[in-house]
């Protein structure tokens, strides 16, 4: 019943350090999202400058549904969120080479006392996967023209990353069994 010991442990302070950087990036992305095209109303602004662009579209109070794919992608919030998504992907695929992990090893850890114990690398990896899912959902929804999708996704991811950094909140602790109950993961051997 006990889990197998991880082949190699990680310094438990490394994921929290990374979570601080991720929180700041997500907060900036949320700010850019709120002031950018995702939250822009259609009554003013560029819509008025482009009577020919998607002229058949009417009825929405938001600018995004009428924006071109290029405008949806070149939105600063979209681009920063894309960078965050790629960093989450990096954290899932190769946590040990992740930039924040490397920064922690090279710059932060030499200034700290050695860790009292090493931790399992699987929980932070799971959290990175959840973050990747949430911000990717926001990006995809903005691509298909859903207003506010990116700032809502980055705000949700910010809350999780901030709670992890500041309070030691752990997504894998809170979410895994809920996702398992919903049948998303962890079915496996079912005795009895």
């Amino acid at each position, binding site marked *: 019943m006990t889990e197998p010991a991880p082949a190699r442990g990680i310094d438990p302070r490394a994921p929290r350090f990374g979570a601080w950087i991720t929180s700041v990036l997500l907060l900036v992305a949320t700010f850019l999202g709120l*002031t950018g095209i995702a939250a822009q109303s259609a009554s003013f602004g*560029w819509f008025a400058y482009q009577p020919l662009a998607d002229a058949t579209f009417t009825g929405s109070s938001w600018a995004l549904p009428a924006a071109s794919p290029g405008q949806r992608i070149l939105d600063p919030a979209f681009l920063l969120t894309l960078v965050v998504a790629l960093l989450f992907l990096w954290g899932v695929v190769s946590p040990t080479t992740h930039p924040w992990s490397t920064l922690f090893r090279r710059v932060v850890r030499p200034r700290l006392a050695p860790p009292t114990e090493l931790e399992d690398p699987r929980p932070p990896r799971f959290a990175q996967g959840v973050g990747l899912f949430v911000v990717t959902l926001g990006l995809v929804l903005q691509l298909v023209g859903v207003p506010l999708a990116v700032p809502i996704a980055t705000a949700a991811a910010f809350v999780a990353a901030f*709670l992890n950094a500041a309070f030691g909140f*752990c997504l894998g602790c809170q979410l895994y069994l809920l996702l398992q109950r919903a049948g998303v993961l962890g079915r496996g051997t*079912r005795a009895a």
Partner: protein
Amino acid sequence: MLRHIGLVRSIRTYRGHMPLPSALIALAALVAIAVIAGLLWRARDGRRRAGADAIDLTDLGVTSGRISLVQFSTETCARCPQVRRMLQGVAAAHTGVDHVDVDLTHRPDLARRHRVLSTPTTFLIGTDDTLIARFIGAPRRSDIESTLAELPALQEAS
């Protein structure tokens, strides 16, 4: 190209965009909500909850007639190892108390049967095989110790 010029112009003129003060207030509210959520979570975390008399001990690895601290964990639970070390320390300090670790990663049946929704969750099982208390989150060692101290079986044993 024309579209891009229009986009740039609209950003410069700021028409239709959320005003800067509103965006900053929304950000401040977001941070405040996160801090309050964190404080509430920390205050509730690991508190003792009421037990339920009957419990199906199948597959939990509990020795009948002994006091057991049954800890539910998963592979994605970052806080479980520290709780495991603490509970092992409690079990080592009291004769008649066992620590049992149950990995729910591949056991949705056990998670459902015992209504475990998050990890770490710890059940305190009495010598009469009843569920005395539940601790959802990382319990404080003092809370575990004080709950154990209330048990007549342990008082006789020690």
